[in-house]
Structure formats: C-alpha cells, structure tokens
C-alpha cells in the first residue's frame, strides 16, 4: 500500500475531493498546513507597514491507497488541483507497511 501526501491549493480542495470520490476514493484525511515555496503570500499591511506572512495556507491531503489505485489517484489530483501557476503544490508518495481499521481490526487492503 502507498501513502499519498498531496499539498494543494486550498481553493482546489472541493474539486479534488469531488473528483476523487468519482473514481471511488471517497475517503481521506486532510488538515490545514502552511507552505513555504516559490510562491509567496500576498503582502498584508497594518498602519502602512507591509508584512509578508511568509507562507501560504495550503491543504494537506493524506490518502492511503492500494498500489493498483495509485496511478488513477495521482492522475485525478493532477487534473483537479491544476491551475498551471506557480504554487499548485506537490505530491509525495511513500510506502505504508500496514493498515488497520480500529473498529474491527481489519488489516491490509480490507481495512481501506
């Protein structure tokens, strides 16, 4: 099994989730994170002094998936999270040794 961590634009979140559910992946865990990269946040100002918050609010999706489904999920994210501008985000793929479902101690693919 693989873990996909996708750091995407917050504004693309809705779209990605709905596309994923169309290809049969209606489960994931996400959280609000902040990204530092090439793209910079809009400068804010208070009483005329500008400040750069230095980061951009982004959404981190965490999806654990069987190896077979990996490519379709990747493609789906490429599609739905894309704007073509700097800052579209990254996807990291890593190995997961084991997965358990707490409710019934299912393990492995059954647990997904």
């Amino acid at each position, binding site marked *: 099994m693989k873990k996909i961590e996708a750091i995407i634009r917050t504004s693309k*979140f809705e779209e990605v989730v709905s596309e994923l559910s169309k290809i049969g992946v209606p489960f994931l865990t996400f959280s609000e994170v902040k990204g530092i990269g090439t793209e910079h946040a809009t400068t804010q100002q208070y009483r005329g002094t500008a400040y750069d918050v230095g980061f951009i609010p982004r959404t981190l999706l965490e999806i654990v998936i069987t190896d077979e489904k990996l490519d379709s999920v990747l493609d789906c994210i490429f599609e739905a999270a894309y704007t073509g501008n700097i800052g579209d985000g990254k996807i990291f793929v890593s190995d997961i040794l084991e997965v358990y479902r707490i409710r019934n101690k299912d393990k492995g693919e059954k647990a997904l």
Partner: protein
Amino acid sequence: MKFEPIRGLLFSKKTFRIVFGLSAMMLLFIGHSYGQDAEVEEPVAVLTQDVANIMWLCLAAFLVFFMQAGFALVESGLTRAKNSVNIMMKNMLDFCFGAVLFWAVGYAIMYSSGDSNFFGFDTSLAFLGSANAPTDGDGYATSAAWLFQVVFAATAATIVSGAMAERTQLKSYIFYSILITAIVYPISGHWIWGGGWLGDMNFRDFAGSTVVHSVGGWAALVGAIMVGPRLGKYNKDGSVNAIAPHNMPMAALGMFILWFGWYGFNPGSTLAAVGGISHIAVTTTLAAATGGIAAVVVSWFNFKKPDLSMGINGVLAGLVGITAPCASVSTGSAAIIGLVAGVIVFYSALFIERKLKIDDPVGAVSVHGICGAWGTIAVGLFGQNSIDVQYWDSETAIKDGLFFGGGFEQLGIQLMGVGAVLVYVLAAMFIIFYLIKATMGLRVSDEEQLEGLDLGEHGNSAYGGFVMENTGPAAIIKRTEA
C-alpha cells in the same frame, strides 16, 4: 467646564450667570407673585419646556446614534470573518459621510419650507444655516432637530450595507451612501415629515417605519439585486447553499444594542419632553418581544430547531413594525403587530432567498423594507384616534383603523404612502446603482471575493492570531436538503 465646585452654581450669583448665559430664556423667576405665600422668598429657577424638549431630543439622538454600532455588529456577525474589517469600515464611513452631507445638503431638502409639496431646497438651512453658530434658543432647537434627523438618515443609509455585504466595492458603497443621505432620503422624508404632500394627507408614520426603514429596505433590495449574489450562494440548479455566519454572539449583541437604541428612535419621535413617551416605550417593548417569540417559534416549527439568526431578525422586525404605529395603538395591538412582523420576516426572508433568488445576507430587505411597510399599514388597521390624538391635535390625528371601526379611510392613506415611497425609492435607487455600476462598478472581482474583502480592499484581516478555516466560496459547504 469650570466649576468651583458645582455647589457654587447654586449660591454664587456670579457663577450662576456664568453658566446660565441663557437665563433670559430659560429661567423662570417666580416669587413676589406669591403674595400670600411667605414661605417662598427667593426666586426659584425651573426648567422650561423648551429646554426640556431640546434635552430629550438630544438624549434620544444619542441612543439612536448608538444603533450604528448595533447595525455594524449584526451585519458583521452574520457574515464571514474575512469581510469584517470591510463591514466595520462601511458602517463607520456611512455615518461620517452621512453627517457631513446631511449637514451640507440633506436637511435643507428635507425641511425646505412649504413652497413645494414634492421637492425644495431651503438655502437658509444648508450647513445648518443660522444654527451653524446659534446664539439663541431658536438656534439650539434647530440644532437638536438636526441632530435627531441626522441619526435617522444614517440609519436609513446603513441598512443597505447588510444586504450588499461581502461583495461590494468600498468606493461604490461610499458613493451610494453619500447620495442616499444627501438626496434620496431627504426627498421622501420631506413628503412625510417635512411639510410635503403625504404629511398633508395625514399619512401617519410616527417614528419612521416608512420614512427610515422602508426607504433603507427598498434601497437594500435594489442594491442586492444589482450587485448580484455572493459566489457560492446559489448552485447551477438554483438550489441554495447556506453561508454560515462567523460570530453569533456578536450578532446578538448587535440586536441588543439596536433594541436599546430604539428607545431613542420611537419615544424620541415625540420631539418633546412629554409623558406620552412611556406608552411609546411600552408598545415598542411588547412588539419587539412578540416579534422575537414569533420568529423563533415559527423557525422551530419549520426547521425543527429554533434559529437564532431568525430570532434576531424577528426582534428587529417587531421593532420596525411598531415604529410607525407606536403612538397610535394600544399595547395589545402592539403585541399583535410585533407578532405578525415576526411571522412575516421569517417567510419573507425565505421567499426572497429561495424564490426570488436575491442574496440578502442579513435579511435587511425583509426586516426593514417589508416590515416597515407592514408597520405603516398597521396604523390603518390598529390605529386608534383616541390614542393618537394625545400626540397630535385633533385636526391632524388619524382616523380609527379598520379593526377599530374606522373603515378603510386611514388604511387607504397608509397604503398610498407605502406605495408612493416604494415606487419612488425603487426608481431612484435603480438609477443610482445603475450609474455607479456603469461607471466605477459595484462588485469586487471574484478572486477578491474569495479571499475576502478585508484583504482585497484593506490589505489586512480582522482576526490576527486566530487560526481560521481556509474556506473558499462554497468550500466544504455542501447543501443537502432545505
């Protein structure tokens, strides 16, 4: 503010004169007239009715001024955090610009002497005319009258802010608010309170259900239509999404402040220090209470749960509804008028949102426009000559309303007034918003709307230090069943 201390006022002749520069007008020396009453030797100064009227009008105006804070809080509380700076700015600026414009122009239109029953401009009142630097009680009375009027004008202006919240350009809003306080509001105000044709017909709008609230409410309707709904409010199939508010306690505090300020709005409209203010305060209280109850109960029944935002709207609907008839009806009638207003506001808000597909984030059109009309009409239904005549002379007092045996006469007049103002305001505001839209534009860009007007218009945010949810327009908000 020199005093030595104030005791001096009472005993030292010198200080006495110092502070009581107006003595000739204000003090009533009585004394030797009491020939047979040896007890009272010294002349005793008493408060004249003229001064008492001025003081009451000022106090009432202060309370109405405070409503500005209430409007700001209700509007901000019922919308999203990313637009809060913008909303506060609008509510601050519409009063600031409104005060200056109403001083320069608006008052002179509203109270232009009776040459015309429709429109006039009294140059002697522009920039407060002689009361600009008053040197007698006459001038002070005019100052007090202006003060009480300016807070009313600002109320009408600020109502629109809520209906156009979260998507309107700041500069367009300022431009609009200048025009309504300087021109639109004073004209219809003149018709009713300034010696114009509606007033002459004995159209009764004691404290402004129509003059203030309906004018604001109809302007809000035009504004909300012209600026269009917020992104994500309506789906392609026409179904409605909920856009959740960001701070309900703030909205509730705003409601309490508005209710508090309304005790200046209605009782202050006697324009004089008279005992009758107590009855007005009672009718105001009861209508607010029944309005709140009605809206909560109806929402409980319809939604299965009692909705606070509807309850807030209900209280305000009751207050708007009783504003015209507050000095013409019994307490029992007031309770019914409020109750009906609470029901009306509920169905009206849903109808406008779901059927007309007009996005009014705070329900301003329903509360002020519709319930303002209801309150004005209610005079023709529940009004009683025997109560009204306490506040007016017998010639100008209303006829009994339909439910009190007076037939349709007063009701007809009320309906005509409601209709005339409706048509006038819709037309005037359509032209104004159309011109603004055509020139500077009304609506911010979609990107700006998504990231919030605080960032787009002001470059900062309302809640530094709090972690906020990263919400897009409909982000993470899915409509299920209504």
